[in-house]
């Protein structure tokens, strides 16, 4: 690798870092950029597993513009069919049963120009059922109950993560509102003072000596 190439890479790295630091907000988040799709893959081992999760979109740069219309969320099965589809949402929960085992694709699509940050959580839950019990001698029936309990606690944890993400977004909105209130109010004061002084200057100018001579 030549020296020039190395410095170019390090500059790019530095710029990437700056870009990242400017885009990072609170929470675990995924930032989907310009008309782009971000996909995450998860392997589902058993057919019939329940895939549950949630995602929350955190708006960026809502200082001047209106609310972002939201992202599109699609889940594609290993066969290629779309299992779950949500359009233009700013956050939702989802839960469905996996029809096949294999690699599932979870995609977020951003149709706007502004980058967005998405906080998501995906969980694939498996409960060993009676069929597996008959096959495996080591599987105690109590393990099934423990697995059910574990899944129930998982759903509570998922709900908490969702609430945490929503709280982060709410806080972001509130802080933005606060900044906007202060900015707009002081802007209003300045504009008012400016406009009235301009009025005074204009009136002064109207009654200046050149005009007065005309009167006289």
């Amino acid at each position, binding site marked *: 690798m030549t020296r020039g190439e190395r410095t170019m*890479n390090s500059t*790019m*790295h530095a*710029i*990437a*870092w700056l*870009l*990242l630091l400017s*885009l*990072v907000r*609170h*929470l*675990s*988040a*995924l*930032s*989907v*950029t310009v008309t*782009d799709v*971000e*996909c*995450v*893959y*998860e*392997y589902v*081992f058993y057919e019939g597993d329940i895939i549950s999760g949630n995602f929350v979109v955190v708006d960026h740069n809502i200082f001047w513009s209106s609310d972002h219309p939201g992202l599109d969320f699609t889940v594609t099965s290993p066969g290629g069919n779309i299992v779950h589809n949500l359009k233009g949402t700013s956050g939702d929960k989802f839960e469905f049963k996996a029809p096949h085992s294999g*690699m599932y694709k979870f995609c977020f699509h951003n149709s706007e120009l502004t980058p967005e940050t998405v*906080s*998501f*959580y*995906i*969980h*694939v839950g*498996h409960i060993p059922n009676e069929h597996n019990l008959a096959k495996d001698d080591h599987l105690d029936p*109590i393990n099934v109950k*423990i697995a059910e309990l*574990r899944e129930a*606690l998982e759903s*509570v*944890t998922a709900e*908490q993560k969702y609430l*945490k993400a929503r*709280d982060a977004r*709410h*806080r972001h909105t*509130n802080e933005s*509102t*606060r900044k906007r*209130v*202060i900015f707009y*109010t002081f802007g*209003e*004061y300045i504009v*008012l*003072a400016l406009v*009235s002084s301009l009025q*005074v200057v204009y*009136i*002064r100018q109207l*009654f200046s000596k050149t005009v007065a001579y005309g009167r006289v």
Partner: protein
Amino acid sequence: MLKLKAVILTVGLMSPIIVHSMLFDLQSGIAKCITEDLMSNAMTIGKYSVVNPNKGYPLPDTHKITVRVTSPAGNNHYYCDGVDSGTFAFTANEAGDYMACFWSQEHKPPLTMSVELDWQSGVAAKDWSKVARKGQIDEMEIELKKLYDTITTIHDEMFYLREREGEMQKLNTATNSKMAAFSFVSILVCLSVAGLQLWYLKTFFERKKML
């Protein structure tokens, strides 16, 4: 032309039986970052590896990645250059967003590789086999201990959420009172500016002997 896109990804997976990992695509030259929100004093373990496109053959050099893990303050916790797999583990001393960034060398034509990441924290990150060996506890008791730890974590999270809600309420009431104060001051500013204008113009015309 340098094209840069910063992408931040999330991880939040817990599965005691099967090791669940998340796969994402990494394009050459474009950095992708994953942030995980960790509580203070939480153990965290992250295992990453680049998926080999050609099974059986060694991974080409173009598929080597750079990994860096930073704390919310910006301190470096882990840095590895030119690797295709590895593990990072540390205890989070402060609560916040920990960011793991993945980056590979720029390549023409742009190369896309799959990176597998398994990032666990809290209950799932604890070394349960060590606990089992130390106390000679059987499997079921381990499962129940895990559940107990999960419940404790949930309880702590509830406290955290309640705290955040309190802060939010304070922020909202502060904004509300600020808005009321500013509106009142706005009326005063308006009236004072109008009064100043009138006074100034009056004195000006009196000076000019027009009034």
